[in-house]
């Protein structure tokens, strides 16, 4: 499977798009998205303008954008250190928040039980005090009912293992280090004498790392490993799930056997991942979907990412 910045961008875009589309179609909203820039801008302006977007969805959108940016920067010859640090901090902050959430609430997969509003942020942690305006938490509780099936799915989707994300960020910063600084800091820096002996070794090691990085699906972050967790990035490696989501939207009979066979909550996160497509079709909401709108949007989407 080809993995490069453009392909990753497409996947992230498609994922963002599908997430948002499901939400918006579930609300009876239509969006016309006519070209790539408008599409991305559409997502972020949807973030800005919509008060009804649930917090986890917003967070996921931001996280996707951050990761895309970091990946783009990684491919630049000379990434901007200031921006990279700011974005990496944002990613860490989101990761920390998700970890707090997941440690506070067990994952209920495909159950009809709505997660409680208090499981959404507003969580105070020692490191981060993230206090949302009270308005949003009220909205979350009101939309919690309709999100009953999808809430826990979203949570499980969003769960990223600590190690994976930390190693991802570490790898980016390490690469920045290589690119930028191969002279040791000294109190007296004589001009003209700037390359220490250790740099050739670093160069060799880093180049090899980089080559290996480019192979494989997890090329976004160098030392990222496939683990048993439902890591967000692992999703990207499995195209089939996306295909299933798209196809399912065309189905005329919504009572698909894929639906909602209630499964006992399972601690095995791999199963969570497998049940994701079946539980996450909008038909679980039993909201009639206009087929022409869907096909229009999907057609646009195909043009954007399929070609």
């Amino acid at each position, binding site marked *: 499977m080809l993995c490069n910045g453009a392909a990753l961008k497409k996947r992230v875009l498609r994922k963002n798009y599908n997430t948002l589309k499901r939400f918006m179609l579930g609300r009876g909203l239509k969006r016309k998205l006519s070209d790539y820039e408008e599409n991305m801008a559409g997502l972020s302006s949807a973030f*800005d303008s919509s008060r009804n977007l649930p917090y986890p969805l917003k967070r996921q959108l931001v996280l996707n954008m951050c990761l895309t940016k970091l990946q783009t920067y990684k491919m630049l010859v000379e990434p901007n250190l200031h921006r990279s640090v*700011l974005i990496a901090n944002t990613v860490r902050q989101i990761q920390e928040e998700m970890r707090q959430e997941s440690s506070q609430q067990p994952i209920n997969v495909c159950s009809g039980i709505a997660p409680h509003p208090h499981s959404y942020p507003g969580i105070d942690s020692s490191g981060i*005090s993230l206090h949302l305006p009270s308005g949003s938490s009220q909205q979350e509780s009101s939309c919690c009912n309709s999100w009953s099936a999808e809430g826990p799915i979203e949570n499980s989707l969003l769960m990223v293992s600590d190690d994976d994300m930390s190693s991802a960020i570490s790898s980016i910063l390490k690469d920045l280090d290589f690119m930028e600084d191969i002279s040791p800091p000294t109190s007296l820096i004589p*001009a003209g004498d700037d390359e220490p002996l250790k740099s050739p070794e670093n160069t060799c090691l880093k180049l090899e790392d980089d080559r290996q990085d480019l192979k494989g699906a997890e090329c976004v972050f160098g030392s990222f490993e496939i683990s048993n967790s439902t890591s967000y990035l692992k999703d990207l490696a499995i195209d089939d799930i996306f295909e299933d989501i798209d196809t399912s939207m065309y189905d005329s009979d919504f009572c698909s056997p894929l639906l909602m066979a209630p499964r006992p909550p399972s601690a095995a996160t791999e199963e969570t991942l497998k049940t994701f497509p079946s539980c996450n079709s909008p038909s679980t909401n039993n909201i009639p979907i206009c087929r022409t709108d869907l096909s229009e949007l999907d057609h646009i989407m195909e043009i954007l990412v399929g070609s």
Partner: protein
Amino acid sequence: MFLKFSLRSIFYGAGGGGNDIQWCFSQVKGAVDDDVAEADIISTVEFNHSGELLATGDKGGRVVIFQQEQENKIQSLSRGEYNVYSTFQSHEPEFDYLKSLEIEEKINKIRWLPQKNAAQFLLSTNDKTIKLWKISERDKRPEGYNLKEEDGRYRDPSTVTTLRVPVFRPMDLMVEASPRRIFANAHTYHINSISINSDYETYLSADDLRINLWHLEITDRSFNIVDIKPANMEELTEVITAAEFHPNSCNTFVYSSSKGTIRLCDMRASALCDRHSKLFEEPEDPSNRSFFSEIISSISDVKFSHSGRYMMTRDYLSVKIWDLNMENRPVETYQVHEYLRSKLCSLYENDCIFDKFECCWNGSDSVVMTGSYNNFFRMFDRNTKRDITLEASRENNKPRTVLKPRKVCASGKRKKDEISVDSLDFNKKILHTAWHPKENIIAVATTNNLYIFQDKVN
């Protein structure tokens, strides 16, 4: 509050008169066409200490210096116009062969030295190298050499029959810029600031992780005075964004960070100023918290007041004035474009959220100015607490036309003459502004044009 304002309007007239400055268009420099050549993008603007000279640097590595005419001052119809005095190529693009990186020639900062003799000196820097330039005038030239023709060819000595003494004859004024010092190879990361010490002998240069102290006469060594690079780059969470020497205390300087903190350091305390003397930080407002809180708290510019008692910082949405004696919060906060707070995700997506706006004080430290989008710039009067939004646009380009205040409509019904947030042009940003040290003359840089505005002289 409302009543006070009404009375004020009656006595002073809304928007003008009394103590309020009325800003008028004076000049605009630069190309007229909409197609902006990348090399013409202005990257820094700076008046010299007398205000007579105004320097700009651009992305193509050039420095253009304008000089104020002196004659019109007597007539006092308007203050003198600024005309081109000197243009020179300060930095060239370089290629770092070891790292396979191109080093941009874009001029990041220009700082003038105070004038000591007939010549002018300035420091200009790109990402890696700082240069000291001498700008001198030549208005006489020697004529009448014995062994040289006028065009410079050598004469055969055997053809010389008489001798004469060469004399200096007047010539058209020629302004020459020559590089006097080149301070190179001291910065691994990108230089974002230079600042000349009040001793006029040393200066500092700051990059993302380190600050170095130089002597103006010595180019082959510098002292590292701040180093925030962690032993393990994976632990890096903060970078240096700006640094400046105190205007009066030659041992004091400040540097700002991407986390919204400012550290004041005293060089007498230790050779390596890693431990600050003061840490200025405002606690976060929890009601404004968002995913982008840290990004918008990153300080893009820090400037001491002329008095040295205050300093001003610019972050993405606001300007803050700090009293050096109070570390826990700023004494004044001015919102530059609060209406953008609800658009942060879009601004993050198109990278505008990383734009680095600068700010400046007027000569008396009573008014501060900074730029915004749509070619708007904002001024805040610290005494009257009034603020004004003006636009740098060629549409108002009749000299002595008073600029009309602009207003952005955040939401709801848009009044006539207001602009809605969604119609702002985010490609037209004013990042660099400068205020004459003594008079009410300001230089405002749009993408590739330099506007000069003056207050209305009656």
